């Protein structure tokens, strides 16, 4: 029994975590040919960066109508400035390995970051620029000017440089610590940057430019992720969680103020928030308790129907109009009750079977709402017509339908709902994280890991599963009551199976069991189709494809929960060491 306590280095030494390709390219890290290798890669990389910069100053097409005019030499357009930024980042990653910045390289400098950046730049130029130009102009490939080809070559060279760079024995960026104020500053700046990027991105009208911007953000993120930046960030954030939380909410609250009273983006933002709040509730069921729920949308629907039936709408079917707070509570409790009923089979069935049971419940809910129309049953829901004309919310005289002024900035109807939903999602995140970091959360993990062993260790398996179902349903029901007012009407077809699939996809795509990931997944799934109307017809096709590809190549989601990642990659020993090293770094 060794006395190795939290020394990730000694773990790393036992197994080589690099892929065979890296080793082939680099030889052994200490072998004499490493400096030559470094020089060669360095030169290739510099040439690549030079080509990228050159490309940014060249013409990309003759057609001035495309991509915000990139026809000029010596005067970069927006999408070319993106390229410049990416080139600078590549230069930075090169210079930390050799030259003036190499002192930083003691900590930074995973060559995978540079490689990912190079590949990303190439894809950016091929898809977001090249394909976008060639597909919109009649001349097809003939519409491309040399600048694009120069850039692609540059991107490939950067990728090659990243590939050829010898593996580098850095101390590891995750050991790098700065004074607390600096770390806090980094967190705050990043959040502010995210807000600025969101406001900027939503302001882009031209879909092609929007796609280019998204590609740009994705490339930068991929470079940072592969370079280990997010590992470091997750440790830093672990130490300053409150700061991140406050900064994020401050940024989110500030968002409507950037919109100058325009409703276009705010209406998208509110629908994103409703979706995200529901997905976060589902995340408790799927991400924490590990139960697959394919009928989750029914809980949102239950809340919405309760909200509608007890509202002041002339079409409301129940003649009792309590204040909204009461309605919200009733909606949530009714959904929770449904959750209890739907959850009760978990006592006897699990896994795939449970998923099908929940799907069947979801369909039963939709069909029931459809049938309670007065012909096939009591008239509670007006069947397929639904309950329309639900009035605006009104809290103590504050009318959600009216535009209010806030320090001279107009706050519109959608912004009003946006603020309310922000509070709601904040509450749901609070519930999620606090449950996760508690005795109950540990019980859920234990159940996911080994249900029988958990039971044999005294964990109340059935109780915890039911709790997840009922708790998740409660939150979705709460969101539903707000949704009814925000949408103005409630109909059964808003709550069909496909919506449940979308919610599940948001959780899976973002990263089960994470807060940031699921928010990101919800934003991607809801925002992109709204913003990219031109592919509205292909939305579902791409959605299906995305699910298949994600499960094949990155089942743990974009933002991986470390433990979840291990569950999906059961035999990856290097990953297990890595996760442990990061964990140790966080707790010390």
């Amino acid at each position, binding site marked *: *029994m060794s006395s190795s306590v939290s020394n990730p280095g000694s773990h790393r030494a036992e197994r080589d975590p690099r892929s065979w390709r890296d080793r082939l390219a680099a030889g052994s890290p200490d072998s004499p040919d490493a400096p030559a290798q470094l020089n060669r890669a360095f030169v290739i990389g510099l040439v690549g960066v030079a080509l990228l910069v050159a490309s940014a100053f060249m013409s990309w097409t003759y057609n001035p109508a495309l991509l915000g005019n990139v026809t000029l030499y010596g005067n970069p357009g927006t999408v070319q400035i993106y390229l410049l930024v990416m080139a600078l980042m590549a230069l930075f990653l090169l210079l930390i390995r050799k030259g003036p910045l190499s002192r930083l390289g003691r900590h930074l400098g995973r060559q995978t970051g540079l490689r990912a950046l190079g590949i990303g730049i190439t894809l950016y130029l091929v898809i977001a620029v090249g394909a976008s130009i060639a597909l919109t102009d009649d001349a097809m490939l003939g519409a491309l000017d040399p600048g694009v080809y120069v850039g692609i070559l540059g991107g490939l060279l950067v990728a090659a440089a990243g590939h050829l760079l010898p593996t580098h024995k850095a101390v590891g960026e995750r050991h790098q610590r700065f004074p607390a104020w600096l770390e806090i500053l980094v967190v705050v700046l990043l959040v502010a940057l995210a807000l600025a990027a969101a406001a900027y991105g939503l302001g882009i009208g031209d879909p092609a430019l929007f796609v280019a911007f998204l590609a740009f953000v994705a490339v930068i993120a991929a470079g940072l992720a592969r370079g280990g930046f997010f590992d470091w960030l997750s440790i830093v954030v672990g130490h300053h969680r409150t700061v991140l939380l406050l900064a994020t909410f401050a940024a989110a609250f500030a968002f409507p103020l950037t919109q100058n009273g325009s409703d276009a983006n705010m209406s998208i933002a509110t629908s994103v928030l409703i979706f995200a709040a529901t997905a976060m509730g589902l995340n408790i069921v799927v991400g924490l308790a590990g139960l697959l729920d394919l009928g989750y949308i029914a809980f949102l629907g239950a809340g919405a129907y309760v909200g509608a039936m007890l509202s002041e709408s002339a079409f409301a079917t129940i003649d009792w109009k309590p204040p909204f707070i009461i309605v919200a509570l009733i909606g949530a409790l009714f959904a929770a009750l449904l959750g209890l009923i739907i959850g009760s089979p978990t006592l006897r069935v699990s896994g795939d079977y449970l998923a099908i049971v929940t799907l069947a419940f979801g369909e039963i809910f939709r069909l029931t709402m459809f049938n309670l129309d007065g012909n096939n049953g009591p008239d509670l829901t007006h069947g397929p017509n639904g309950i329309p004309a639900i009035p605006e919310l009104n809290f103590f005289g504050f009318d959600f339908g009216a535009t209010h002024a806030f320090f001279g900035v107009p706050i519109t109807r959608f912004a009003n709902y946006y603020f309310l939903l922000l509070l709601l999602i904040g509450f749901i995140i609070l519930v999620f994280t606090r449950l996760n970091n*508690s005795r109950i959360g540990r019980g859920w993990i*234990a159940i996911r890991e080994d249900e029988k062993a958990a*039971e044999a*260790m*005294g964990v109340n398996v059935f109780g915890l599963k039911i709790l997840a179902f009922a708790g998740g349903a409660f939150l979705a029901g709460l969101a539903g009551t707000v949704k009814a007012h925000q949408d103005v009407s409630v109909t059964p077809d808003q709550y069909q199976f496909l919506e449940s699939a979308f919610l599940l996809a948001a959780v899976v795509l973002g990263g089960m069991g994470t807060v940031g990931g699921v928010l990101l997944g919800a934003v991607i799934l809801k925002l992109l189709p709204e913003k990219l109307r031109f592919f509205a017809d292909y939305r579902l096709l791409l959605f299906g494809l995305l699910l298949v590809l994600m499960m094949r190549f990155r089942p743990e989601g974009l933002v991986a929960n470390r433990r979840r990642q291990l569950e999906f990659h059961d035999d990856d020993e290097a990953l297990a060491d890595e996760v*442990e090293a990061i964990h140790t770094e966080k707790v010390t």
Partner: protein
Amino acid sequence: MSTATTAPVPAAAAQDSPTILSARGVTMRFGGLTAVNKVDMTVHEGEIVGLIGPNGAGKTTFFNCLTGLYKPTEGEVWLAGAELPPKPREVVVAGMARTFQNIRLFANMTALENVMVGRYCRTSSGPLTSILRGPKFRREEEATRARAQELLTFVGLGGKGEHLARNLPYGDQRRLEIARALATDPKVVLLDEPTAGMNPRETEECKDLIFKIRDNGMAVVVIEHDMKFIFNLCDRVLCLVRGELLVEGDPGTVQSDPRVVEAYIGGSELDDEEDEH
């Protein structure tokens, strides 16, 4: 829990103390197969009882009957003066915890978290408490953590709390399972082949650990194949052959019983494999 002496308590003294666990006529049939047949067993407080027998003798099946994983076809089990509740979870609450023959840790949790899960049934923070984070929650959470750390130290894993269970060496995983079982505050601990796969030094350490557990007032029941280990460890040994209790007595008696020798030499080649729950 102290980490005091490890000297064996004389067997006679333990047998005078009150009974903590007793099985009466426990029989388990699977279809036509009788895996366990009318086995009686009595365990006193502070006693270490060994359960031996050739492969397929029904040891693990008997264990599973004791821990509520199986409901015995006939017979009854009493724990601390009450009949054994029917579910594994309730058995743990009643004061009996176990380890598994094939280690069943929560692989992707840290060692400390594994032990903290063991505290689940002795803590009570519900969802509301967890969300509101009042003083009660903090107190309980801290106590859980402290107790888990204490138990890790007790089994000799004090410095490894933050390691993932799956990254621990085999011997440490076995100790961690014991720590997790102890976290449930058991009156009786059932260990299913605790030294399987251990080297002699680790086996020796394991023996000391079991003595230490006993010295803290718990009774221990051990299934083992390692005869030397069992005879050095236990106050009393039961030998199971083909589901029936063949011999019971102090280690010396069982060791020298010709039927035990016969069962091991004659029986082991006929039986094929250990039954697994």
